[in-house]
C-alpha cells in the first residue's frame, strides 16, 4: 500500500458509504425500528398529549439508543466475513485510525440519520417545540458516543455465537451515562431550564470516547482476528 494514512482513511470512509448505499435495507432497518418503537408508546400509555410530552424525552432517547445498538452488528461483520478486516490489520498503517474511520462511516449511516429523523418523532410525541433543538443537539453529541462505545462490543463479539443478544448485554450498561444526560437535557429544556451543564458533560463523554474507544476497539479486533 503506497498511500499515506489520510488517503487510506478517506478510501475506507468512501468505501463504507458506498457499501451502505448498495444495501439500503441494512441502513433503513434501525430507522424503521426507531419509528416503530416510538409509535408503540402512545399505544401503550394512552394518547393524552400531556402524558406523552412528559415521556417524550426518555422514550426518544431510549428508542434512539436501542436503534443505534441494533445497527452495531453490521459495523464489522461483513468485513470479517470476507476477510477485509484481516487486510486492514495487515496494512502498514496503525489499526486504530483505520478503525476510527470505520466507526465514523458507521455513525454517518446510522446515528446521524437517527438525529435527522428525531424531530419528526418528537412532534408525534408532542414534545414542546422549544425543546426540539436540545433534542437534536444532544443526539448529535450522544449518538457518536454510542457508536464509539458500541464498536468495542461489536469487535469483541465478532464471530461469537449468540453475538447479537450478547452485544446488547455488553454495551447497554455502558450507555447509561449518555442516556441520563441526553434525556435529562431534553427534559430540562422542555421545562425551561438551563441545559449548558448537560451539553458540557455530553461533550466531555464524546471527547473521552473519541480518545479511548477506537484504541480499545482495535485491541478487541486483534483479539477476535487471532
Amino acid at each position, binding site marked *: 500500500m503506497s498511500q499515506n494514512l489520510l488517503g487510506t482513511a478517506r478510501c475506507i470512509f468512501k468505501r463504507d458509504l458506498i457499501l451502505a448505499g448498495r444495501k439500503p435495507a441494512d441502513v433503513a432497518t434501525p430507522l424503521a425500528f426507531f419509528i416503530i418503537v416510538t409509535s408503540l408508546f402512545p399505544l401503550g400509555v394512552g394518547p393524552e398529549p400531556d402524558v406523552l410530552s412528559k415521556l417524550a424525552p426518555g422514550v426518544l432517547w431510549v428508542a434512539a439508543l436501542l436503534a443505534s445498538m441494533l445497527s452495531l452488528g453490521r459495523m464489522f461483520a461483513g468485513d470479517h466475513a470476507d476477510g477485509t478486516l484481516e487486510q486492514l490489520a495487515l496494512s502498514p498503517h496503525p489499526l486504530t485510525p483505520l478503525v476510527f474511520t470505520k466507526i465514523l462511516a458507521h455513525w454517518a449511516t446510522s446515528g446521524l440519520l437517527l438525529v435527522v429523523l428525531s424531530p419528526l418523532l418528537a412532534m408525534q410525541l408532542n414534545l414542546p417545540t422549544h425543546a426540539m433543538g436540545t433534542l437534536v443537539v444532544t443526539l448529535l453529541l450522544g449518538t457518536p458516543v454510542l457508536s464509539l462505545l458500541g464498536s468495542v462490543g461489536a469487535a*469483541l463479539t465478532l464471530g461469537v455465537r449468540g453475538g447479537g443478544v*450478547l452485544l446488547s*448485554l*455488553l454495551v447497554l*450498561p*455502558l450507555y*447509561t451515562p449518555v442516556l441520563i*444526560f441526553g434525556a435529562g437535557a431534553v427534559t430540562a429544556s422542555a421545562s425551561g431550564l438551563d441545559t449548558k451543564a448537560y451539553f458540557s458533560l455530553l461533550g466531555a463523554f464524546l471527547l473521552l470516547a473519541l480518545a479511548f474507544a477506537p484504541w480499545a476497539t482495535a485491541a478487541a479486533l486483534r483479539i477476535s482476528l*487471532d
Partner: protein
Amino acid sequence: MYKYASPKNFYALAGRLIPWLGAVTLLLFIAGLYLGLYVAPPDYQQGDSYRIMFIHVPSAWMSMFVYMMMAGGGLVGLVWNIKLADMLATASAPIGASLTLSALVTGSLWGRPTWGTYWVWDARLTSELILFFLYMGFIALQAAIDDPRRSARAGAVLALVGVVNIPIIHFSVVWWNTLHQPASIGSLGKIVSPSIYPSMLHPLLIMSVAFFLFYFTVLLIRMRGEILARERHTGWVAEIVRATPEIRGTHP
C-alpha cells in the same frame, strides 16, 4: 515467588492455603455475626433492621473490589500473558456477581422497613444494579467464546473498558438521582458515617475482613478448578486423577 506463577505449583500452594483461610474466615464470620446480632445495641431510629448492614455494606464494598481484581487480573494477563492472572479474572467474576446480587437483595430488604418499599431508585442501589449487569456481560462473553486464550483476552478488554466507565456511571447516577428525588432519603453513606458507635463499627469491620477472606478462599478454590480444567491434558493433572479414586471412577 516466581515459582508460584506456574499453574502446577500454584495448585499445590492454593491447596495448602485453603483450609487455613477457610478456618479464619469462618471464625471471623462467627465473631462478626455474634457481635453484630447480639452484642450491638438496636439503633434508636431503625431498631433492629439496621443489622442487615453487617451483610449489606461488606457485600457492596467487596462487589467493587472484586471488579477491580478482575480488571487487574485481566490487565496483567493481557500485557504479560500470564495464564494465572487470566484465571484469576475468570474465577473472580461469579464471586463478584454473587456479592453484587447479595448487596442488591439485602439493600432491597433493608429498604422495606426504612423507605417503606423494596426498591427505590437510590443512587447506590442503581449503580450496584448496573455493576451487576457489567458482571453478567463479562460472564456471558467469556462463556460464549470457546478458545480459552481468546476468551480470557476478550474478557480482559471488556473488564478494562468497564473499569474506566464505572466511576462515570456512578457519578452520572448520583447526579440523576439528586435531580429526580429529594435528598432527604437516608442514603447508606449517612448511616455508615464516622459518627457510628464503636459497638456497631467493630462488627462491621470484622465482617468486612471476613468477606475479604471469604473472597480469597473461594477464589483459590475456583482457581484450582480452573487450573485443572485448562491443564487437563498435562501429565501432572493425569497424576492427580490417577491418585484420586472418585475422579478415576467417572473418567476411565
